[in-house]
């Protein structure tokens, strides 16, 4: 257990004073812009309306992109400076190393989600919405669910990033699969298994007749699929990493 914490603390040093965390700020700032320009009015269901409007860019684009970028980033310096062999010559298990990287990625995604949440509240207050009307339960489900739905993609991207020594290649892959999100979301059969669209599916269900395609699925089923795909990708990544020749 202590070596697991040590591995995580070692990762912390490697992040250094890098600018990567700026990404977690750009996302809520842009989404806040979208929210402020939107026509959601004060009144019945205003907070939820605002959430849906702001979530589109965040869940469809920023979350998957960030999952890819953070994953590529935590592997970047090892690929560039030969750090894999140094890390793996230290008395720490490969799974501890891998999971600490995964934890850094998920931590950064959690932070993004938190900042996004703050942005939604901030925009609502600026628009003069009543804070006492915030549907906290619904918001909590969306925020936590959306975060959880990023995890399979984070695990998948980390796997690819650890395998490919190029920093750009996993990002290009991620971009290619993120772009068709809006189309994929239409398919109720396919969408739940598509890691890039999962955050969007969970976060953007509007309820009732407004939903279509993948958005009609019950949240519980979605979360089971999310959990299952996370387990598969994380296990595959761990198995690969444990045998990776360096």
């Amino acid at each position, binding site marked *: 257990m*202590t*070596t697991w914490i*040590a*591995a995580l*603390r*070692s990762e912390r*040093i*490697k992040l*250094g004073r*890098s600018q990567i965390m700026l990404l977690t700020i750009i996302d809520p700032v842009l989404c806040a812009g979208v929210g402020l320009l939107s026509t959601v009015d004060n009144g019945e269901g205003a907070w939820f309306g605002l959430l849906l409007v702001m979530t589109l860019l965040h869940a469809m684009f920023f979350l998957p992109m960030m999952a890819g970028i953070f994953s590529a980033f935590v592997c970047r*310096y090892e690929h*560039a*400076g*030969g*750090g*894999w*062999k*140094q890390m*793996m*010559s*230290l*008395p*720490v*298990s490969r799974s501890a190393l891998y999971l600490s990287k995964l934890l850094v990625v998920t931590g950064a995604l959690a932070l993004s989600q938190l900042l996004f949440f703050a942005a939604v509240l901030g925009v609502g207050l600026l628009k003069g919405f009543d804070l006492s009307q915030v549907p906290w339960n619904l918001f909590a489900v969306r925020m936590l669910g959306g975060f959880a739905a990023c995890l399979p993609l984070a695990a998948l991207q980390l796997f690819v990033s650890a395998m490919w020594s190029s920093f750009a290649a996993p990002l290009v892959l991620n971009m290619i699969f993120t772009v068709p999100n809006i189309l994929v979301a239409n398919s109720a059969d396919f969408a739940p298994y598509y890691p890039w669209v999962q955050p969007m599916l969970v976060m953007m269900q509007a309820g009732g007749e407004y939903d279509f395609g993948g958005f009609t699925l019950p949240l519980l089923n979605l979360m089971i699929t999310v959990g299952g795909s996370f387990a598969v990708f994380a296990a595959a990544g761990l198995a690969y990493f444990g*045998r990776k*020749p*360096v």
Partner: protein
Amino acid sequence: MTEMMIETRNLTKKYRGTRAVDALNLAIPRGEIYGFLGPNGAGKTTTIRMLLGLIKPDSGVVQIFGQDLRKDRLRILRRVGSLVEYPSYYGHLNAIENLETSRRILNVPKSRIDEVLHTVGLTKDAKRHVKGYSLGMKQRLGIASALLGSPELLILDEPTNGLDPSGILEIRELIKRMPQEQGITVLVSSHLLSEVEQMASSVGIVNQGRMIFQDTIPNLQRKAGSEIHIALSDAETAMITARELGCFPRLDQGKLVFKGIDNDQIARLVTALVDARHSIYRVEERRKSLEDLFLTMTGGGSSDAASADDTIASGAPRAAGLRREAAQ
């Protein structure tokens, strides 16, 4: 009975059907500086990566500190410091931060960082980003991080790669001190025998994945053998004189060259030659350079004639040095 720090049995690694390491048996006793020699592509780095568990052997066993690497990898690695092929570094961090990434896992006091930086002479540049370091400085950082955990066994793959002559000397002296001052056993790879010869107590020579020689440096030097060269006025007739005394030299550029000849024979021979009115210009002992022996063993070519020329050109100081050592 000496305790083996590293022992491999039939260690083998194949890449696309060819054996990069072929049934290698290493045996490195405690307190040695073991020079691991071989030409480019011989399999040194591949072997070292297997010793550290970075790659899996296709067959064979690695034992370090008498423990099986497959079973006790982490416990073994805690006591091993290593530098493989190129130094690893995080360019966006300074030297202290770089070492800190390892220190947190090794769990040694923070003061170790200053100590190892001082040891490799990087204290002055410790706060600079490592991406701005020269190759030699990165190499020093690599050695510093190998030393960080106060290891009992140091595995260094071409540690002087990229260092300037004074850096090479410094690192060599550093390595030489390890067994004496701290009881550390060192495995150091190189493709230069001349370099290893100056620090190692024993050597293993690999070629095409196979161990072709493993012994102490003095034994290697003995194997190199020596020749007596006599330069004189008329070599052809002198040959006849020599034969009459039961010595059978070969003729080489107007000199007589004797192999395996003892002091008595030389004395008698010189007397006879002087009596026969030869002018003797010089009598000298030439030790075949170890580099030549190495080349011969690893199939890199070099004939006796070439070695003699080499001795004249550049090998002379070394030959003298060897003679001195052999006399001790």
